[in-house]
């Protein structure tokens, strides 16, 4: 793979992560336990959809075949999506949503911070925009994880179960493939090894604060970055793409 191809694949992957997580959050709109969190979820989802649009528009330009953001979002099949498995897992309870966000955003924030310094100007600019938003999310979500973990017996038990359940999807974030390696070497992108070091120390500190136990690293579920997904993504995409598939080019 040449360096241009790697950059395109990398940017598409960033878009896929943002879109799939954003869509999962959109599914929860009007279903949150209280108004403040309802607004937080909707606002955060909007940030992710907005970021996906910036990544996809850029991917379309890099590809140079006339595809735009909508083509990437609505006209690709499940195996063409390269998002992390963690992000496509179905929504659970409120504490589970918070747990997923903290696990992912600690990684994503570090990734964006590194991308601000990469040599591709446009990617660096998108990262600079997105980084501010994710930092704001993380402050909110981390506070919640601590509050739930260090809360009542019931909230502690439930959020610990979520951490245990989702832990197996965290290994994939740091699994470097050709695309990661080329973007690191040729474009000054992040080193996943370094991101992992930082993530581990950050998550350890948060879990201690939240009086939660860090699960053992067992077998990690991976494959999303290569287009091998869990059964959940297909259903999600089917719903998300329905309108454009049935009425191609529909707009309003």
């Amino acid at each position, binding site marked *: 793979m040449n360096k241009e191809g790697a950059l395109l694949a990398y940017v598409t992957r960033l878009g896929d992560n943002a879109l799939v997580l954003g869509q999962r959050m959109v599914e929860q709109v009007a279903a949150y336990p209280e108004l403040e969190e309802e*607004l937080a979820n909707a606002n955060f989802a*909007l940030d992710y959809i907005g970021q996906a*649009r910036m990544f996809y528009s850029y991917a379309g330009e890099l590809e140079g075949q006339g595809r735009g953001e909508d083509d990437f979002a609505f006209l690709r099949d499940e195996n063409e999506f390269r998002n992390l498995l963690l992000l496509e897992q179905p929504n659970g309870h409120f504490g589970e949503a918070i747990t997923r966000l903290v696990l992912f955003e600690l990684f994503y924030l570090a990734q964006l911070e590194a991308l601000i310094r990469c040599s591709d100007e446009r990617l660096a600019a998108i990262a600079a925009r997105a980084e*501010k*938003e994710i930092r704001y999310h993380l402050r909110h979500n981390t506070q919640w994880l601590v509050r739930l973990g260090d809360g009542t017996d019931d909230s502690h038990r439930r959020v610990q179960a979520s951490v245990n359940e989702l832990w197996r999807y965290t290994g994939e974030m740091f699994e470097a493939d050709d695309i990661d390696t080329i973007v690191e070497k040729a474009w000054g992108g992040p080193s996943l090894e370094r991101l992992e070091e930082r993530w581990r120390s950050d998550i350890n500190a948060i879990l201690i604060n939240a009086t939660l136990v860090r699960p053992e690293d067992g077998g990690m579920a991976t494959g999303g970055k290569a287009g091998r997904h869990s059964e959940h993504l297909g259903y999600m995409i089917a719903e998300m793409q329905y309108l454009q598939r049935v009425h191609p080019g529909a707009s309003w």
Partner: protein
Amino acid sequence: MVAAAYSREEILRWLGQVADPEIPVLSITDLGIVRDVEIGETVTVALAPTYSGCPATEVIEHSVLEALREHGIEHAEIRRVLSPPWTTDWISEEGREKLREYGIAPPQEGAGKRALLGANLDVACPRCGATATERVSEFGSTACKAAYRCRECLEPFEYFKCI
């Protein structure tokens, strides 16, 4: 090519009449999202998006083209500028004053960084000026606002979120 019948300053003045759709007391120049105006074969207006998912972005772009057309500029386009990213520090002094009058506490200069680092800021009530205020919700009616309440005059108000 016909010599341009309008200057950059003039166009900027027209853009100063284009309102932000979500906070209509603010113009897009108050908001600090107009980065540049280039006059060539076409007029190019460089705009910085505020928040990634802000639904107002496209409405604003549409309004800009509309405003230019009203002043006889048929060939105009929008260029989106991502770098340097917009932050609340780009809001002008005048814009801050307009926000206050409208009942929205303006963001403090340079507050974005501090707020993100978790510092608790004193937000003055836009109605009575008291700093004894409390945050009700980090999220408000639009992506850019948080909900506050004044403990002195007991009025609820919105605070322009610092990002």
